[in-house]
């Protein structure tokens, strides 16, 4: 069994290998023949038990560029919406001969359950589970940072990266903290105390409640989506106050150092955590993150599925 469930399953060498392989994949995709024959005859299931647009399409595009057969299995209109259990879904996919299942699920740990149980034998790739992790997003973020903030190879040693906003509920933040620090970057979490997890002091990160004091030192600023419903849960008083202290607006962007970048995993709340002029500015690599996502996911699928034995996630 070879899976990608959590960044914590990766060694630094494995993470760098994925990023390096993604460069190759991007190069191949830019060539005249976009499609590689690598995964011909392999069946990959996109099991999206939670709504998602970009991640599902990104994985689908990645799998198709590697010539895999892709089956999309969404929440709406499928047996999942009829109350089928995760176990029965897994048994069904196993019976259909899925070589890999890419799973997005609202329950933290659902991919781990799928991979650890005797329910199926294929590879499991976590495409975002609850408030746990989103490893492929972190890998595409690291890929993007490496491209813009380093000479293009190796790790992220010495870079300073800020992750701003709702860390508490963010799987993107959890995976990025693990991966970016694994790759040698210095990560600072910038958020009101209510949106930081209990025990965050034990994480390999710096913590700041003061965006303005940190932003001039950052090579990359990663904004997190803030759900409107957090307000009713008393995490902050209202959207205006949140934006004032933790939103990325033009004034703050002007404090950023030269060549630093603005990132967002999407979907954005323009006007809440990021203003439109920042999102559309020259510093913004938000759209590029999406295209990098396809290359990185091709690399993940390639390394997990092409030939045996697999080269990554051996400890998963």
């Amino acid at each position, binding site marked *: 069994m070879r899976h990608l469930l959590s960044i914590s399953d990766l060694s630094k060498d494995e993470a760098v290998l994925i990023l390096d392989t993604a460069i190759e994949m991007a190069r191949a995709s830019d060539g005249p023949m976009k499609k590689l024959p690598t995964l011909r005859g392999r069946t990959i299931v996109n099991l999206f038990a939670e709504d998602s647009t970009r991640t599902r399409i990104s994985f689908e595009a990645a799998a198709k560029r590697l010539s895999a057969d892709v089956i999309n299995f969404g929440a709406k209109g499928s047996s999942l919406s009829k109350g089928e259990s995760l176990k029965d879904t897994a048994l069904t996919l196993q019976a259909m001969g899925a070589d890999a299942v890419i799973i997005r699920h609202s329950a933290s740990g659902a991919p781990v359950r799928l991979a*650890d149980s005797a329910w199926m034998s294929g590879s499991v790739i976590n495409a975002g589970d609850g408030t*746990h992790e989103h490893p492929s997003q972190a890998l595409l973020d690291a890929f993007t940072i490496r491209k813009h903030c380093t000479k293009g190879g190796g790790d992220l040693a010495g870079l300073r990266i800020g992750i701003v906003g709702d860390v508490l509920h963010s799987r993107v933040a959890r995976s990025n903290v693990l991966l970016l620090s694994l790759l040698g970057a210095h990560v600072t979490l910038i958020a009101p105390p209510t949106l930081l997890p209990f025990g965050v002091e034990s994480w390999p990160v710096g913590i700041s409640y003061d965006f303005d004091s940190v932003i001039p030192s950052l090579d990359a600023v990663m904004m997190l989506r803030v759900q409107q419903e957090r307000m009713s849960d008393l995490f902050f008083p209202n959207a205006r106050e949140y934006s004032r202290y933790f939103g990325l607006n033009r004034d703050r962007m002007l404090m950023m150092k030269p060549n630093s970048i603005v990132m967002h995993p999407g979907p954005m709340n323009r006007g809440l955590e990021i203003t439109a002029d920042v999102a559309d500015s020259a510093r913004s690599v938000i759209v590029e993150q999406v295209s990098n996502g396809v290359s990185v996911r091709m690399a993940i699928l390639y390394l997990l599925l092409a030939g045996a034995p697999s080269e990554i996630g051996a400890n998963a």
Partner: protein
Amino acid sequence: MSKSYILKGGLLPNGTKSDIAIKDGLISGIGTSLDASGSEIFDIANCVVLPGLVDLHTHLREPGREDAETVLSGSRAAVKGGFTAISAMANTSPVADTAGVVEQVFRLGQEAGLCDVFPVGAVTQGLEGEKLSEMGAMANSIARVRVFSDDGHCVSDPLVMRRALEYVKQFGGVIAQHAQEPRLTVGAQMNEGIISAKLGLKGWPAIAEESIIARDVLIAEHVSSRLHICHVTTAGGVEIIRWAKARGIDVTAEVTPHHLLLTDDLACSYDPIYKVNPPLRTQKDVMALREALAEGIIDIVATDHAPHPAETKECEWQEASFGMLGLETALSIVMATMVDTGLMNWEQVADRLSIAPARIGGYSDHGQEIAIGKSAHLSVINPTASWKVDRDLVASRSRNTPFHGMEFPGVVTHAFFKGVKR
């Protein structure tokens, strides 16, 4: 019922080697060279004889969820674990909040006949925390209920708690509180700590337990009532109870076997077999609970035996039910965590698992010292033997034991209820 037995060569809790004669439901002789004529003889050399174990906290699921457990299957599990009295929690369907339901459960226990089944009555109607249930009617029913609990739910309204504590004084009752501040635990999945943050599972902070314990010991003091705290899990909770007892407040407390052994890092598997309420805590809490039990700050071990059907555990963590089996493994876990570690001797085990819970519950026929003329409710354990837990071999109707595959010391070899081997 006129069977007679001789138990030969066993050890009493105080370590004295002694034979025990059982006749007509009573202990008829203690010592050596007892008259064995007509008696069935059991050689129990090296075994420890304890007063029959008493569980103050058992979920039997009947009426309502007979697929998970029945009074009969739960009684079988109890006897297998050495218990001769268990307390059926009120969160059945319908809720045990009327004399009718507690009498039904009591009768089912009598019909099963393997051990005494004492129903626990709900504090509030439907466990909704708003209106008091008819506790007087339950107390005066044939079930003679003395322990009242909304277990599964906290009696969170301080005024309701105050009134309940006052009300049960008239029949010598006790309120067993499930200490969980509801607003601090909305959607909570596991202990709030470093592990929950890493796993992205919503935290159940220790303060949600501690704040209710602190509030309730103060209310109990103010109204001079008797309070029992269910399943204490935190070092902080222990400290508050220690303070309350030193102050003379009439409070007792229980700890479950699983909270004496297991910790929250088991959730890293996301296997809901480890999902329980209150949740597994940290090693620091486990050590504090063990010390408190040895000291008597925590008075008793209670199982919180919580059977659940397979489909409610074979799923995502956050979808899964809270709870784990406890009756069949309790004594072995106490032996592993408390006796083999040198924290307690067998006399203390007898106290924490039989004498003290019987006293708290008002089960006057149970939890007696082993002496001539007492009811012959006895458990025999072989402390030199060990066994491996197999979920496929449990007597319970459900299989949700987190101890599957684990090896434990101490095999319950016999349980005698009313002088009859069960």
